[in-house]
């Protein structure tokens, strides 16, 4: 048997008091697709960063193709034949594909020679692996799936035999994911070695040969994919049995709470981001919005929440017309019973340097309960936070701890507690479980369904298709700012949703609300 492509032995890494990798060992055989999974903070990014030379391990050794290798920086990693495709693409938007690929390999003062060499290599690789990318296309004009192929090509042109892909499917539609997986299998068939870092269990099962699971800095196991199931992997990740399915009874929709008609939003440059969106949300139902991120979902949520001003169309709450972004700013809308859990809690939902208690009153700091007149009563704020932390099982339950020090799941619980505890009539909720550990996902889903069963209207946006289908009573699909279809979760499948997410409108009749 040939030497494994990667053999990491006894990798140990500490960041201050955080023990990110505890004597981790990882072996990846040549010509295989290997999955690496684990919850946030399990140490998988650290491990990959050490392999790619971003960090130096405190102890431990790395052997590439059986040869002990010292990887001190990314240049060493590239030299050893390791390439990395980051979750957030590292491309210069205004450059063409060729210009991007030759970054770091310009070949002298003048670029013509380097460009020609890169172009030849690109063509050979595109032909060999069936990757169809126009070398002269400007990167900003490419679709997300193509960008990812450019990233992969970039690594291959630099001579990578081992490819690390970090959350490669986060921004892809189901059909693009399928294409990517075909490509990955083909690369593996040609003898390349692939490591996929992800948290999506279903994809791991689809594409990998072997899976390694990390938990709290330790490698808890490597299993043959054919011998495992999502539930087993989840148990390995969390350390206990978790319920992956959402249990909910039938919905009991009542009066229309949110009525959106022809809502159109333009961005600062005048580009249409939301195009005549029309839909309703009733009390006692969850309406989900599916779609690849960046297709107008954020604009939709932010407009209804009063953060953006629409270019056209109307929004009504309980029959009363709203002036979103005008007189109905977020403060006014909160008073009307509209609550909003923003998609990106770090950017909007929390103030990371604040104490947890201070983040827990974001948007509520003017409530009379928090102090007399202009003053904030610190004791009242702390007491309020303690109550919320208890109700939502936030750990550690310390209201004076800095917000940034909580895990993703606990940060999200703080946001949810703040918004749900105020008894909303309508809850807008974006990406409820992004970056949240599996254990907390269960809890958050239960809360959202509880809210529905209490007769509240819920508008849910998530780029996790499984989540939208599991939680929603009706699903709207968005693509390019338009609502391309509406389905009941029980009447659809992944392929059907994939077509809608790619903007292929169907003539199937709409579901009666």
């Amino acid at each position, binding site marked *: 048997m040939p030497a494994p492509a990667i053999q990491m032995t006894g990798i140990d890494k500490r960041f201050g008091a955080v023990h990110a990798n505890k004597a981790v060992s990882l072996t990846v055989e040549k010509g295989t697709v290997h999955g690496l999974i684990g919850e946030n903070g399990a140490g998988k990014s650290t491990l990959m960063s050490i392999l790619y030379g971003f960090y130096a391990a405190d102890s431990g050794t790395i052997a590439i193709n059986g040869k002990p290798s010292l990887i001190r920086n990314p240049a060493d990693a590239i030299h050893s034949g390791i390439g990395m495709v980051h979750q957030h693409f590292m491309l210069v938007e205004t450059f063409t594909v060729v210009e991007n690929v030759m970054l770091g390999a310009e070949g002298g003062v003048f670029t013509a020679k380097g460009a020609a060499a890169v172009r030849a290599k690109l063509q050979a690789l595109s032909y060999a692996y069936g990757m169809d990318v126009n070398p002269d296309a400007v990167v900003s004009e490419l679709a997300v799936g193509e960008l990812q192929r450019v990233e992969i090509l970039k690594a291959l042109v630099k001579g990578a035999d081992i490819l690390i892909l970090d959350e490669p499917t986060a921004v892809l539609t189901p059909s693009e994911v399928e294409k990517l997986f075909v490509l990955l299998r083909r690369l593996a068939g040609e003898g390349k070695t692939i490591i996929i870092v992800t948290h999506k269990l279903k994809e791991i099962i689809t594409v990998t040969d072997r899976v390694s699971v990390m938990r709290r800095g330790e490698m808890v196991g490597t299993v043959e994919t054919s011998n495992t199931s999502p539930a087993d992997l989840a148990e390995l990740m969390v350390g206990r049995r978790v319920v992956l399915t959402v249990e909910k009874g039938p919905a009991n929709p009542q009066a229309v709470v949110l009525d959106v008609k022809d809502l159109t939003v333009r961005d600062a440059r005048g580009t249409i981001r939301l195009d005549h969106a029309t839909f309703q949300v009733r009390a006692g139902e969850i309406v989900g919005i599916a779609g690849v991120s960046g297709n107008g979902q954020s604009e939709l949520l932010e407009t209804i929440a009063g953060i953006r001003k629409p270019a056209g169309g109307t929004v009504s709450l309980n029959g009363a017309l709203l002036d979103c972004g005008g007189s109905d700013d977020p403060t006014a809308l909160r008073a009307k019973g509209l609550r909003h859990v*923003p998609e990106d809690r770090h950017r*909007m*939902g929390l103030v990371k340097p604040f*104490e947890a208690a201070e983040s827990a009153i974001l948007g509520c700091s003017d409530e009379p309960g928090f102090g007399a007149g202009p003053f904030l009563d610190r004791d009242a704020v702390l007491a309020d936070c303690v109550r919320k932390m208890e109700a939502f099982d936030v750990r550690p339950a310390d209201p*004076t701890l*800095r917000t940034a020090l909580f895990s993703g799941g606990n940060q999200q619980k703080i946001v949810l507690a703040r918004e749900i505890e105020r008894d909303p009539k309508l809850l807008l909720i974006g990406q409820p479980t992004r970056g949240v550990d599996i254990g907390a996902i269960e809890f958050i889903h239960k809360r959202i369904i509880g809210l529905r069963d209490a007769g509240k209207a819920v508008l849910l946006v998530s780029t996790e298709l499984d989540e939208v289908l599991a939680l929603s009573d009706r699903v709207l699909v968005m693509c390019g700012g338009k609502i391309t279809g509406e389905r009941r979760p029980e009447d659809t499948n992944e392929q059907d949703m994939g077509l809608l997410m790619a903007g292929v409108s169907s003539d199937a009749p709409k579901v009666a609300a």
Partner: protein
Amino acid sequence: MSARTAPVWLTAGVVPLVNVAVAFLAAGLVVALIGENPVEALQIMLRGALGSQYGLGYTLYYTTSFIFTGLAVAVAFHAGHFNIGGEGQALMGGLGAALVALSLPFLPWPLLLPLCVLGAAAAGAAWVFIPAYLQACRGSHIVITTIMFNFLAATLLVYLLVGPMKMAGSMAPETAKFVPGATLPLMNQMAAWFGLTITRTPLNLSFIFAILAAIFVWVLIWRTRLGYAIRTVGANPDAAVYAGISPARITVIALLISGGLAGLMATNEILGVQGRLINEFTAGAGFVGIAVALMGRGHPFGIVLAALLFGVLYQGGAELAFDKPKITREMIIVIQGFVILFAGALEMMFADRIAALYARLTGKLVAV
């Protein structure tokens, strides 16, 4: 209180002290290089600044100005803005105080004096309004605009002091003396009311104002809804928008408060010491305020300590230059420069190591 951070004594006490110690070591090297004894130089400085009622009075007099300008920088900083126009706002504060004092001399002092103080704050705030508005609503960078407004303020003051506001028949660029009811009592006068005798120095009632201003800023930033909004805008403007807090509005309000505090610096020099408006009376206090605010980590307690340190440097430095002719006035500025470098620009250099040490000693993980 942005974290379960280290206790205040650590962030605003130990960390700056270590920085200052390093600054003094570096300055000591320079003193040794020119052939003087650094230990002796330090002794002269400390004795000159703190060793007598006279020295202490002058030290606290300088401290007063630096507290005001340091607080001004800190309030803007909490809103995420770098107001480096304290110099100009303080000059305008002097103008505001002088306009009130000279135009309403007939008022009784219990009315006139508060109006003069308010005039100083209002003029300082007014001077920052245009940069604040441009920053909030047009995105013009406040650093650029406040620097330019410093020059405008200096030029405007010269124009007024050699022209419309000059005392008739005088050759000096200064206004007429204010009526006694428009000036603040000196500390030795106030001590005399209680039957105490202390040496006469420029230290005056505005020192008490400065301490009250520090308390005001602490309450404002950490115990009011407005302070919460200011800190939210400073730490995460997107979260502020989400919360329904208008960053533009809060920016203007925070900068007006900042300008008002800078304007109050004039109460020390103009209402307290000069009793008339003179040219260039700020003498760089506006800029020292930046170093003071950085060194005090934006916390009023730290700012008072940092201002005291700079007061010591100013007064002790003057004594040192007087005692040791080889150590010129410029050398003193070099020493101050080292303090600004280590305590301001390089303030975080030792912070991590101190936090690690603290964690090792107490077992508590903190962020400094």
